[in-house]
């Protein structure tokens, strides 16, 4: 149990350090990537390529072992259907990402810097998650 938590802590540290090194904590740089009609900044493509490459190596190792080192089983999504919530949610997320240059990881990692704009974004993001969960629950009970 303790080992699992320490491993999760180490993974979080690597993630936060990687975000800081990569430049992705800077919304200006992220927006520079998304602005294909402006002076394009390709940084995000290199970050994503590096991240997906190493992460894919991890999945290849995972396929060869029966269970994780510290847990009884792998917990990996198995769904393959493309449904409306997947696409609709991705559209909403994309609009918010494009408006601000923030996605969840960098916005949280930047909290330590104490910038008011980041605090507002994170507070609103948590509120958005809460509202979305509330709506889902409301819909589930009204359909019954």
């Amino acid at each position, binding site marked *: 149990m303790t080992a*699992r*938590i*320490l*491993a999760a*802590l180490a*993974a*979080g*540290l*690597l993630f*936060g350090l*990687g975000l*800081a*090194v*990569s*430049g992705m904590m*800077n*919304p*200006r*740089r992220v927006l*520079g990537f998304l*602005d*294909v009609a*402006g002076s394009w900044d390709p940084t*995000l493509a*290199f970050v*994503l390529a*590096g991240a997906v490459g*190493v992460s894919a*190596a*991890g999945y290849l190792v995972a396929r060869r072992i029966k269970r*994780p*080192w*510290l*847990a009884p089983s792998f*917990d*990996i999504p198995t769904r393959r259907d493309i449904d409306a*919530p*997947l696409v*609709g*949610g991705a*559209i909403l*997320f*994309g609009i*918010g*990402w494009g*408006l*601000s240059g923030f*996605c*969840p990881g960098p*916005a*949280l990692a930047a909290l*330590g810097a104490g910038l*008011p704009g980041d605090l507002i*974004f994170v507070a*609103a993001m948590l*509120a*958005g*998650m*809460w509202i979305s*969960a509330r709506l889902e629950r409301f819909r589930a009970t009204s359909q019954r």
Partner: protein
Amino acid sequence: MITDWNPWQALAGGGLIGLSAALLLLSNGKIAGISGIVGRLMLAPGEGAAWRAAFLAGLLSGPLLFVAFAGHWPDIGIDASWPVLLAAGLLVGAGTRWGHGCTSGHGVCGLARLSRRSMVAVATFMAAAIVTVFVVRHGIQP
């Protein structure tokens, strides 16, 4: 506008993020999806709350390692106004919850395991973000 960019630093930073995803997968068997980790911790704690809280503590502390080495915070340039940040935060929170993931869960982890759902999600949120930035920056000309 930023004119300088360094592909090696970007690849190295991305590699660390990938290493994080691989470590969480191989040790705990879990996906390193930030929106999912935060959302579950806030909305449905209980089993799994401890590792999620530990991961988040690491995520928030990771940049401090950068500060310790570099002597300064990485650049964080926020140009959006507070009302826009508020609206953007709501959209990102609701959208990632509804679409089951963000740049990390669908991007870093989903693409790495060639998930069909994640490929669709990444293509969709990238397109939506590019269109949004285009409209904001180039759409309304005086």
